[in-house]
């Protein structure tokens, strides 16, 4: 049975492709009538070459100008640790560090990042040694389904760089850009406080 040889990701990708093809037929043309007027000489897809310093190594990419950093990571570079939740900056699942600062990869055009340093969840550990935040999330069981976890951890990594107060109230406010629909917040907060060394 070939399905046994499929990875979870390949299985999801293949089924998603079938499902979305049907969905496109169903909704094509809806909602376009009232969109802002199209520019008559709308350009063809435009590409840009960029080199991003990704997790410490330069990555040269040729990208459609519309490509978000999130899609560049997941679809072009196959770094699928960074998650796509809302794709609108509201959930934080795509949080990465750009030049050490946490940002939403879904709201960032990859072609604007030439020469910038991007750190994703894949670049956080040192070899086999977990980053203190990763270890603390395991120790405190700071997740249930795990989908928001890479974004939570990268956001917390940004937070630790910022030097904020680390009482529980402050951590909750400064982590407000990351939602967890399982509701693992108490454990997430404790994990971050422990990793800060100021719990």
């Amino acid at each position, binding site marked *: 049975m070939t399905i046994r040889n499929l990875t979870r990701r390949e299985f999801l990708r293949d089924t998603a492709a079938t499902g979305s093809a049907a969905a496109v037929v169903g909704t094509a043309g809806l909602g*376009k009538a009232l969109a802002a007027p199209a520019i008559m000489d709308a350009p063809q897809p435009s590409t840009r070459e960029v080199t991003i310093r990704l997790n410490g190594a330069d990555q040269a990419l040729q990208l459609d100008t519309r490509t978000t950093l999130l899609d560049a990571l997941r679809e072009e570079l196959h770094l699928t640790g960074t998650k796509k939740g809302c794709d609108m900056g509201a959930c934080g699942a795509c949080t990465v560090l750009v030049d050490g600062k946490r940002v939403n990869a879904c709201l960032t055009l990859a072609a604007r990042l030439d020469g910038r340093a991007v750190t994703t969840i894949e670049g956080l550990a040192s070899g086999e040694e977990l980053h203190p935040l990763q270890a603390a999330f395991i120790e405190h069981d700071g997740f249930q389904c795990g989908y928001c976890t890479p974004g939570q951890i990268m956001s917390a990594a940004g937070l630790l760089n910022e030097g904020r107060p680390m009482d529980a109230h402050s951590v909750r406010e400064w982590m407000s850009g990351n939602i967890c629909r399982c509701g693992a917040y108490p454990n997430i907060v404790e994990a971050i406080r422990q990793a800060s060394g100021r719990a």
Partner: protein
Amino acid sequence: MQPFTLDRGRDIADTIRRGRIAGTDYIAGGTDLMQLLKDDVRRPAHLVDLEGLDLDRITVTPKGVRFGAMVRMSAVADHPDVIKDYPVISQALLASAAPQIRNLGTIGGNLLQRTRCTYFRDTAAPCNKRVPGTGCGAIEGSHRTHAIFGGSRHCIATHASDLAVALVALDATVHLTGPNGARDLRLTELHLVPDDHPDIETMLHPGELILAISVPAGAWTRQSLYLKVRDRASFEFALTAAAVALDIQGGIVRAARVAAGGVGTKPWRLPAVEHALVGAPATAATWMRAGALSTAGAMPLRDNQFKVRLLQNTVTRALEQAGGQA
């Protein structure tokens, strides 16, 4: 998302030359524009990137503070002099969005963000702001979060920025440059109420660019505060908000600056409240009397009437917190 070219100008002059071409949008932090592009609300053929134009400085002098348009929201919120001497600005920013977005979003872009009205952001809905003449879905529809000041029969969308409310209260000026040269505009004059043209939101000419925003120093800026009321404790737009700045000497209010957020089709200055404060004793009775004047002229609709009382209470509470209770 429609395809677009993405380029940078060599300098500001070259940027403006590109920006005046029809179908061009500038992109600063991109936090709002990216959402509008993904939703097909904006469909530019060309994006001109404002990064790399040396517009990211904060300058503090005895005369005031000046923010380059590309300064990040987080950089202003964390600036020690802003926290100390202009706390209302830092507080308004920290009450805005979430940390990740504040690391992207810029001061200039924040002022020009588009309304959060769901009819505006849904291309299947009518909206006079997005496509003039298609009608307003909100006036008869879902308008719990919409404006009680400055609406017209064509549009009641609120201006979403917290920062703009704080800056309007502090008499900020925007420094512009464009195809017809440089000019300054008071921030209160930058945004327009919808009237018959909700699609025209600002006084900016095509291709015109905000280079910087300056805030004059004043005896009132230190004793200033931003209070925001929303449906959840963080990462949410305002239902009501108040920016207040007070100069109190010998128990008497010498000067006051007050503006409201979440309630106007543009950042809404409250001169009647300021007038009631000046010369009055810094007491709870004064704060309450002034707060009650905050909704003079309000025109609430079916589902946003709660904002009238809520704004009065928000302004009163903000004055109490900033001015103390003598």
